[in-house]
Structures are given as C-alpha cells and as structure tokens.
C-alpha cells in the first residue's frame, strides 16, 4: 500500500515537474535574485551590501512615487473601461446576430497581434506630422495636436494623465477589449439556461434580468477579469514603452517629461538606461509587493460577492 502511494505521489510530482521547472526558472528564481540584487549598491558590477537603503531611497524618490501614481491612473483609466465595454459587446454578441462569428473575430484580432507591432502602428497614427489622428482633427477643423509628445494633462494642464498617456490608454483599451469580450462571452455561455428561463417565467426581462440574474452569475468571470487586468495594467510595459519612443531618441522610455513613465518603465529606465541595477531591482520588488497588495485588496473586496451557479 505504502509503495503504491509513493508511486502515485511520484507520478503526480512528475506531472508537475515541467511546470514547476519553468515557473521556478523563469519566475521564482529571478524574483529571488532581484530581491538579492536590491540589497546591494549594484551599478554595472556588484558593489557593497547596503541592506534596505535602496528601499528607503525609493520612498523619497519623486520619480518613483510619480511612476506609481501614473500606474494607478493607467489602471483606473483602462481596466474598468475595458471591462464595461467588453461586457456590453459580449452581451450584444451573445444574441443571435448575423455575422456574429465575424464580429467576434474582429474584436479579438488586436489581442492576437504583437503588442510591439500594434504600438508602432498606433505611433504612426498619432505622429504629429503625418499621423491619421491629426488628419482627422484637421478635417474636422480642429487644431492639430502633438499627441505622444504632449505632456500637458487632458483633465487639467498640470495633472495626469497627459495627452500622451491618454493616447496610450486608448490603445490599451482597444487592444484588450477583444480579450474581455471573449472571456465575458464564455461566462455568458456558462449561465444555466434553466435559470434564465425561470427568471423569464417570473416576468424578468431586460435590465432586471441583467441586474439580478446575468450580472450576478457572471461574477466569477468579472472577478477573474478584474484580477488579471489589474495585474496586467500594473505591470504594463510593451505598449507604453514603444509608444513612448522605445528609447529611439536620446534617453530612455517615458517621454514626454516622464508623463508616460509608469512603474514598469521606471524599473526599465533605472535598470537599463541608468544602469542602477540594485536600485532598479528594489523598485521592481517594491512594485511586485504593491501588485500583491492590490490583488489581496481586490480579493477582500470582491471575492465574497462572487456567486457560483449550480
């Protein structure tokens, strides 16, 4: 009996091994090493052990604090919008529409395109000299804008988000919309027909059906998307980096005037462009802790409201 148990457990671990190996090598080990690096003065080469001084410095670094603020703006400006529009589209595409498959494909298409390619193309759309965005504004009789070079705020001149970050947020929403739509669609498909029928017999329809039946039963999907999208947006890099110039000009990502330098770009800038490897590692680890904290808060706030059907 005991030998059989061991064999069974061994087989289980064997099945787990490939995933453990990959996660261990590419996630756990780098995270541990980043923590190690963050405790040193480490520029191009490893320097003296300085304990938590890098973390202390982060707390008083206006650039880091501003990058966290920008990340928050980016998350709040993208995640709820993606989810709301994604849900609306999913409900529409859940109906028996003509060409439904084609619409589903069209909305999902951006998500399967390379983020760098998408960012480069949108970079051209927002190009101040030849971009389609200015072409449209000019056709409508509006003054041209400098878009990705514009550091002025869209809500108030000195406050984030800048026009540059807003443009990037719009592209982010456009990119992830299809993903949210498809996941919500699968959530809608999973709602048991008999519950919908019962509600309908009881006289529910339209808004009441959505409010009291569909939305509550979609809550596992909504919770999953909220968690995944928030973590994704907190650590967003590709779209922001490439649309901010991708280090093509002198200097690093996060132009203009650092108004698109979200936390992941701050880490990149300090690590690669300023070669403050230890300090950037501290910023990366701190960002990881912030993401973890926000995920826990999300869990506390929303997991109790999740309703599972059946």
């Amino acid at each position: 009996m005991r030998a059989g148990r061991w064999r069974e457990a061994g087989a289980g671990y064997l099945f787990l091994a490939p995933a453990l190996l990959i996660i261990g090598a590419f996630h756990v080990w780098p995270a541990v090493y980043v923590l190690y690096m963050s405790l040193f003065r480490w520029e191009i080469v490893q320097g003296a052990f300085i304990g938590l001084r890098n973390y202390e410095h982060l707390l008083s670094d206006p650039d880091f604090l501003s990058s966290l603020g920008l990340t928050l703006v980016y998350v709040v400006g993208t995640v709820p919008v993606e989810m709301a529009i994604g849900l609306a589209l999913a409900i529409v595409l859940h109906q028996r529409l003509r060409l439904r498959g084609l619409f589903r494909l069209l909305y999902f298409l951006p998500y399967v395109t390379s983020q760098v390619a998408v960012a480069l193309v949108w970079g051209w759309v927002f190009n101040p000299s030849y971009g389609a965005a200015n072409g449209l504004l000019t056709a409508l009789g509006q003054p041209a804008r400098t878009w990705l070079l514009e550091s002025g705020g869209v809500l108030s001149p000195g406050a984030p988000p800048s026009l540059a970050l807003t443009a990037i947020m719009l592209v982010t929403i456009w990119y992830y919309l299809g993903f949210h739509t498809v996941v919500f669609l699968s959530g809608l498909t999973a709602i048991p027909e008999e519950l919908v029928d019962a509600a309908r017999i009881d006289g529910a329809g339209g808004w009441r059906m959505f409010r009291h039946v569909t939305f509550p039963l979609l809550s596992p999907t909504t919770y999953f998307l909220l968690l995944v999208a928030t973590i994704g947006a907190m650590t967003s890099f590709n779209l922001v980096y490439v649309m901010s110039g991708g280090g093509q000009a002198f200097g690093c990502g996060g132009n203009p005037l650092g108004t698109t330098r979200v936390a992941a770009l701050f880490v990149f800038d300090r690590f690669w462009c300023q070669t403050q490897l230890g300090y950037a590692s501290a910023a990366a680890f701190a960002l990881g802790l912030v993401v973890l904290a926000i995920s826990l808060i999300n869990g506390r706030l929303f997991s109790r409201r999740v309703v599972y059907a059946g």
Partner: protein
Amino acid sequence: MRAPVLVVLIALLLSSCAPASGPATTQPSAASQTIAATAAPEPAVTISLWDGQSGVLGDRLRELITKFNSTHKIQVTETFQGTYDQLYQKVVSAIQANTVPDLAQVSGPPQTAAYWKANVLTPVQQFVDSPDGFTAEQLKDFVPALLDENTFSVTGKKTLVSWPFSKSVALLYYNPDILQKAGVSVPKTWDEVRSALKTVKAKTDATPFAWTPDVYYFFLPYLWSQGGDVLSSDYSKATFNTPEGVAALQYQADLVLTDKTAQVTSGFDWQNPFAQGKVAFAVSTSVSRPFIEQAMPKDQTFKVGMAPLPAGPKGPSTDLFGNNLVIFNKVAADHQRAAWIFMKWLTDVDQTVAWSLASGYMPLRVSAQNAPAFKAEADKDPRLLVALAALKDAHGIPGAADWQKIQPVMGDMVTSVVTGKATAKDAIGTAEKKVNDILAGY
C-alpha cells in the same frame, strides 16, 4: 507582521554572502598586465566585436572586417547589437553573465567612464606603449582632440582608456533650394540662424527648422559658444545654471514658441521630411548625410547642404560624436592583444580613409586628410571637409560615469522649455538640483 521580519532576516543572511570589501575599485595597473618586450608574432585567435553600426554603415564595417580577416591570422567576428544604448545594455548584461566580447564600440566618453569605474576595461594605453603600439612621433599623427576624448586621468596620469574609431561632429544641415527661394545665405551665428528661419517662414511653404530637442543639439553648443560649460572640470557639480545656460534654453524656446519657426519632432522623425525637401534646416551629426540621401525620393533629389554649427560670442562650438573602441579585461591576454592589433589596423591611414569615405565619419589622422584618395574625393565634394574644419571647435561629451543619468534630466529640461511647460530659469534651476543630486551620490 511577519513579512518585514522575514525581509530583514534574508537581508542579514545575504550580508554574510556579500563581497567583504564592496566593489573592486582598484584599476588594473600597467605593471600587472604582461606585454611582450618585443613585438611577438600575431596570435592566431578569433576575436569578437560588438557594434552599433546599423544599415549602410554596418555593411561597410563588415567589408572592412572581411578585408582584415583575409590578410591576418587574427579573425574578427562582428555582431551588430542595435543602437548604441542597446549595445551598452547588452554589454552590461554580458558583464553580469561573464560573457563579454573581446572588444566593443562605446558611444562616447560617458560609457567608457562607466565601464572604467566598474573596472572591466584594459586601458588601451598599455598596448599603445607596447611594441605593438606607436612611438610618440607616430602618435602625433592622430588628431589631438580625438585622442583627448579617449584619455582619462588614472591615478593622476593621463591614460588612453579607449581608442577612437568613428568620429563625427554636430552640423547644421540645410536645403540649398529652399534657402535660394527664400533668398537667405547659410547663417554663421545663432542670431543669423534665427533671422534666416523667420525669412524662410515668410517667403516659402517649407518648415523652417525641425529637430528633436535634447541636450546635444543646440543646448551644449550654444552654451559652449557663450563660454559656458555643463559640468565642473572634475565632474563634481553642475555649472550650467548661468546667464549663458538660460540664454541657451531661451533661444530654443524663442524659435518654437515665439517665432514658431521650429518644429519639435521625436527621434529621427525630422529626417524623412528633410529628405523630401519639406524642411529648410535641421541639425544632426556629420554621418546623417548617407541616411538622408537614402531617404530622398528618386525623382526629387537635392544636394544636401552642410555647414558648421553657428557661432556665439566666443566663436563656434560643436559636439564631438561617434564611437570609440574598448577592450575588456576579462578576456585572455592574447585576445586583448589581438583586439588591439585589429583596432590599430582600423586606424591605419588606408582604413581610416576608406571608412571615412564610406561612412561620412572623419579620418582620424592628419596624414589621412592629406592622403591622395581622400583629397581626390574632397576636391570633388568639399562637404567632406566641413566636419573636419569643425573639429577644431569640437567639445567631447563629458566623460562622467554619471552622464547616462544626467542626460535625461538635461533632455527634460530642454523639452519642458520648448513645450512651454516651464520658463528657462525655472527649468534650469530644477535640472541643476537634480544633476547635483546625481553627482553627489545616488
């Protein structure tokens, strides 16, 4: 509550693994490196070069390497690593992984200074002084400004740490057809530039000037031409918060915001409209010409005009750009020597002339400037001499290891002024504080 305790415990544990004396701060002394007393036979080794030479320039560099490989026992393998910044990032990664190439390009003195501070280089001086090197007389053939740019103070002694390879200077580019249409001649002073741009705006449809604001084009040359400088000579503090510095910033704000004669672009976005004949003036390094000519529509070509950057009260000034070469000290001694032999060959008269004519970079030797092949080309196209003539007014980018951190601060300073987000005085004050903080330590 347990998390902070855990972090502290891990920190304490790691402290016992840390190197006892922090970073290695001692630089390799000449005595510690063994060099043969007489020139030994060339080692038959294969060495690796990492570079940032893209497009047409990369092709020309590979041609040179093929020529070297066919005539030497040493074989060079070349790897293009992207832009200079990407090349730097890859070298920094390779240093962590202990997989550095034998030699690499560096974009200028700041990167050399950063590598030197990290103690990863073998100073070129020891090869220059070796039987494989040069006599003092031979060394005089090199343009002094170029050797100066590669020279650092090592324990109080001037030492060649890197070796010049592809050198260029910032120049004013212009479209002669637009200038003729506007009736303006090539401006020679900053004031003349400003009024030329106004005339172009008034008399033509062209964009008078397009450029991507940063510290190099305009701010530094303008500052230098007024007698100012950006950092103290020992790189310990910022020295640009002066009336000259404010004037250098205000000049750019005047072009963009007051005169509306300058268009702000991003990266190299100015290059295509200039090549298409839509822009009258631009500013870039002397090697931009092949790129501009390549981007020109075939049915709408023009002769690209090149002129020195304008002069201020203290005369003209320009930035010394381009790249140098460094040898890494972690590679075997025979590889280091082979790397030097290759570097030296690259700067022989034949090669420096060929590379200059192929790339637009300047010949590095005085004798190369008089070589028949170069003179013949210069007679045909005097634009080859514009950069050479400007060399006497060239300033190197500050060889401060912290310049990589300072550069974006200065870039933001310029951008905030030309976009009207701050006055020149406020922006320069903010930048001065940030730069001094960087130089002070963190």
